[in-house]
C-alpha cells in the first residue's frame, strides 16, 4: 500500500514537471526560434507517418486517372498545348517588357527589382488540422525552403511556409485566422492589411475608414511592405464593402484569387536577397 501511494505521488510530481515542460516549450515556440532544430528532428520522425497517410489520396488519384477515358485526356492535353503556346507568346512580350523596365529603372536610377527563383512543389493529401488553414507540401529543408517563404499557385498568392521539415513543409494559407499580410489596391495604390478568417473563400481587410476609397471588385496585390512577399502579385478581389454608421472602420471582405486547397501544385518563390542566397548555397 505504501509503495502504491509513493508511486502515485511521484506520478503527480512527474505530471507537474511535464506541464511545466509544456509551458516552457510553448513559450519558447511562440517567442523564440530556439526550437527550430527540435522541430526539424521531430519532423524527420513523423515523415514516414505523413507519407503513409498520403497513400490513400495517391491511390484515389491513380484510380481517377486510370478510369479517365482516352478522349478526355486527349482533350485536356490539347487544351494544355494550346495554353502553353499562348503563355509562351506572352512570355516573349514579358521578356521585352522586363528589359525595357530594367532600362527605364536605370535611367531613373531607381533600384533594380530583385530576381526570383521558383520551385514547384506538390501537395501531400494529408490533413493537418481541420481548425487551421494549412496544407502540407512535399518540399522541405533539403530543398532549402525557409520559414516565411512565399508560396503561390498559378493564379495568385497562396500563403507562406510555416514549418519546415526535412522532406516536407507546412504552408500557412493566407486564409488562416492567424495570418495577415500587407496588400495594396491596384486601382489607387491604397494600402491595407488582409487578415485570414478561417474560411477558404474569405479574407477580411481591416482598419479601413469610411474615407478610404475602396469598392467592390477592386483587385488587391501584395504591397511588398515588410519584405516577406514580393510586391505586385495578385492576392484577392474585394467582394463586399459594408459601411456601418456605428463602427469606426469599414467591414471589407475579399475573396482570394488563388484557389485554396484545390491545387495539386504550388510554386515556392525565392525573391530578392533570399534568391541570391539560395543560389549561392546550391552552388
Amino acid at each position, binding site marked *: 500500500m505504501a509503495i502504491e501511494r509513493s508511486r502515485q505521488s511521484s*506520478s*503527480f510530481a*512527474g*505530471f507537474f514537471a*511535464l*506541464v511545466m*515542460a*509544456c*509551458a*516552457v*516549450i*510553448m513559450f*519558447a*515556440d*511562440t517567442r523564440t526560434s530556439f*526550437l527550430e532544430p*527540435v*522541430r526539424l528532428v*521531430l*519532423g524527420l*520522425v*513523423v515523415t*514516414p*507517418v*505523413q507519407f*503513409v*497517410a498520403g497513400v*490513400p*489520396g495517391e491511390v484515389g488519384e491513380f484510380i481517377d486517372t486510370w478510369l479517365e477515358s482516352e478522349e478526355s485526356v486527349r482533350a485536356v492535353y490539347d487544351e494544355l498545348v494550346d495554353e502553353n503556346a499562348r503563355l509562351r507568346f506572352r512570355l516573349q512580350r514579358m521578356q521585352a517588357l522586363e528589359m525595357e523596365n530594367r532600362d527605364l529603372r536605370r535611367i531613373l536610377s531607381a533600384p533594380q527589382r530583385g530576381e526570383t527563383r521558383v520551385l514547384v512543389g506538390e501537395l501531400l*493529401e*494529408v*490533413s*493537418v*488540422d*481541420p*481548425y*487551421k488553414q*494549412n496544407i*502540407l507540401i512535399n518540399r522541405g529543408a533539403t530543398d532549402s525552403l525557409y520559414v516565411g517563404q512565399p508560396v503561390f499557385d498559378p493564379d495568385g498568392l497562396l500563403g507562406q511556409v*510555416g*514549418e519546415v*521539415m526535412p522532406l516536407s513543409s*507546412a504552408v*500557412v494559407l493566407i486564409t*488562416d*485566422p*492567424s495570418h495577415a499580410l500587407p496588400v495594396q489596391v491596384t486601382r489607387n495604390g491604397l494600402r491595407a492589411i488582409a487578415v485570414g478568417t*478561417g474560411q477558404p473563400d474569405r479574407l477580411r481587410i481591416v482598419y479601413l475608414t469610411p474615407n478610404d476609397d475602396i469598392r467592390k471588385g477592386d483587385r488587391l496585390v501584395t504591397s511588398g511592405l515588410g519584405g516577406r512577399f514580393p510586391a505586385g502579385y495578385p492576392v484577392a478581389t474585394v467582394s463586399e464593402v459594408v459601411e456601418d454608421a456605428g463602427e469606426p472602420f469599414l467591414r471589407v471582405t475579399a475573396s482570394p484569387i488563388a484557389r485554396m486547397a484545390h491545387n495539386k501544385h504550388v510554386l515556392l518563390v525565392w525573391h530578392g536577397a533570399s534568391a541570391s542566397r539560395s543560389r549561392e548555397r546550391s552552388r
Partner: protein
Amino acid sequence: MGWVVLSFFIALVLDSVSLGATFQAFNPPWTVLVLIYWCWVLPAQVGPFTGFCVGLLLDVLSAGLLGLHALGGSLVGLLTNRLRVILGRSTLWRQALVVWGMVLSYKAVVGWIQSLFTTTDLDFVYWLSSLVVVLAWPVVYTLLKELTPIKRRA
C-alpha cells in the same frame, strides 16, 4: 514494446489521413485512444511521459504550437493512470463513456490554449465530434486486445 510503437504509428497515420473538409472534424483522435489503451494495459511502462512524447509528434504533424498536444497527452496519461481501476471494472460501453470524458478534457485543454494564440472559435462541431469516440473506443479496444499479444494483468 514493438507492438506499442507500431500501434502508435498506425494511429498517427489514421489521424493524418485526409477525409475532406466535411468529415475531417469527425475523425476520432486515434492516437489519444491508443494512448489510453496502453496507459491502462501497461501502466508501469506507459503514462504521462509517453503521452507527452506522442503529443509532441502530434504537434509537429499538425504544424501548430509545439507543446500543445504534448500537454493534452500528458493529461490523458495522468487521467488514465488515475481511472485505471474504473476502466477495469466497467463494461465496454461504460468504458467508452469514461474514455469520452477523457477525450473531452483533452479537447478542452487543447482547444482552450489554441484559442489563446489564434482567433479560432470552438464551435458546436468541435465538441460534438468528440462523441465519435464512443463508437471508436470499442473498435480500438477490440483490435488492440485481439491482435497484440500483450495482455492486461487482472
